[in-house]
C-alpha cells in the first residue's frame, strides 16, 4: 500500500465524539498516522507479519493503519469505553473483520503490563500517548508499560520534552532515537483552548529495549 493510499484510507477514521481533556484525548490525524506508520514499515519492517499493540489507542487510527500495512495481530488498549466504541465503529467502517483489530479496555499504565501476561507476544508497540500535560509523567509511564510488552516501541512526544524523554529511556534500559520531528496542527477541541488551532512540534521516537533487560523501570 502506498503512503498516499494509506493516508486516504485513514481519512475515514472518525475521531472522539466527546473528547475528555483529563485523558488528553486528541485524535491523531490521518496525515501524521499515515506518515509514521509508513516509516515504521518501510524503514524497519516492524508492522507486516508482526503482532502489534496500540496503547492508548483512542479511536484506533494507529491500530487500523497497522492492520492495513499488514500486521497480523493488532490489539488496541484504552481506558475509555467511549473511545473504544468509536474505535469499534471505525473498524467496521474500514471493513475490518471482527477480531482483526482486537480492542481491550484497561488502564495502560496500571493494568496492561500485568493483565497482558504475554511479554513476548508483541513485536511492536505503536502509540500516541498522553503528553503528560494533565497527568504529569504519563508520557514516559506509557513508554515504560510499552517496553514491558514489546522490544520495540514507536511513540510521539512533545519536542520540548526531548532531553527528558531520551534520558528516561536510558533509565528504562532502552535506546531511543528521534526519527523525525513533525508539526501537529491541533484544532481547538476543549473550552480552555483560546486559539482556533495551535501547532505543536512533536518528536517521532523509536525505542528499542537493550538486551538483557526486561524494560522494568529502575
Amino acid at each position, binding site marked *: 500500500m502506498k503512503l498516499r493510499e494509506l493516508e486516504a484510507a485513514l481519512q475515514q477514521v472518525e475521531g472522539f465524539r466527546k473528547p475528555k481533556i483529563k485523558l488528553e484525548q486528541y485524535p491523531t490525524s490521518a496525515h501524521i498516522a499515515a506518515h509514521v506508520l509508513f516509516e515504521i514499515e518501510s524503514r524497519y519492517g516492524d508492522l507486516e507479519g508482526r503482532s502489534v499493540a496500540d496503547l492508548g489507542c483512542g479511536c484506533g487510527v494507529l491500530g487500523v493503519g497497522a492492520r492495513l500495512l499488514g500486521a497480523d495481530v493488532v490489539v488496541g488498549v484504552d481506558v475509555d*469505553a467511549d473511545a473504544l466504541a468509536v474505535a*469499534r465503529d471505525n473498524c467496521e467502517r474500514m471493513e475490518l473483520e*471482527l*477480531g482483526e483489530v482486537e480492542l481491550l*479496555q*484497561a488502564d495502560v499504565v496500571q493494568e496492561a503490563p*500485568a493483565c*497482558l501476561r504475554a511479554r513476548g*507476544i508483541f513485536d511492536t508497540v505503536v502509540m500516541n500517548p498522553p503528553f503528560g500535560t494533565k497527568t504529569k509523567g504519563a508520557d514516559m509511564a506509557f513508554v515504560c508499560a510499552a517496553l514491558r510488552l514489546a522490544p520495540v516501541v514507536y511513540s510521539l512526544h512533545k519536542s520540548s520534552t526531548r532531553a527528558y524523554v531520551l534520558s528516561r529511556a536510558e533509565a528504562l534500559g532502552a535506546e531511543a532515537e528521534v526519527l523525525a520531528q513533525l508539526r501537529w496542527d491541533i484544532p481547538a477541541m476543549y473550552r480552555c483552548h483560546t486559539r482556533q488551532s495551535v501547532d505543536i512540534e512533536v518528536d517521532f521516537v523509536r525505542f528499542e529495549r537493550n538486551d538483557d533487560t526486561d524494560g522494568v523501570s529502575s
Partner: protein
Amino acid sequence: MRLLTQNMLMCVKKGCTQEHFPLHIEAEKVERVASEFKLAFIKSMLERIDWPGLVKSAKDVGMAMPAELPPNAENDEVFLRSVHDILMDVRGPLCPLVTSSFLFAAARAPRRA
C-alpha cells in the same frame, strides 16, 4: 475475541480463585470465522502462547488439542493449521463474571448482515 488474544490476558484481581489464567470464554456464544492461514505467523505465535492455557480454553469451547506439542510441531503443517483454527478462527466473548468491572473486551461489534 480470538483465543489468541484471550491467551494473552490474565486476571489481576487479588482474590482470583482461578489462578488468574486463562480467562473463561462464554462457550455457548462461540463462533467460527474463517481467516487466511499464514504459516510463518502461526509458527511464530506457537513459540509465544501459553500452550497449557490454550489446551484448557480449547476444551472449554469443545475443541480438543493435544496436551503436549507433537514432535517437530513447527514443521507439521496439518498441526499448524489446526493451531491456526483454534487461535484465529474461534471467536467468543469473555465470561462477564470473570472479567467483572475493570477489564472487558470491546470487540463485540454487531455482526454485519
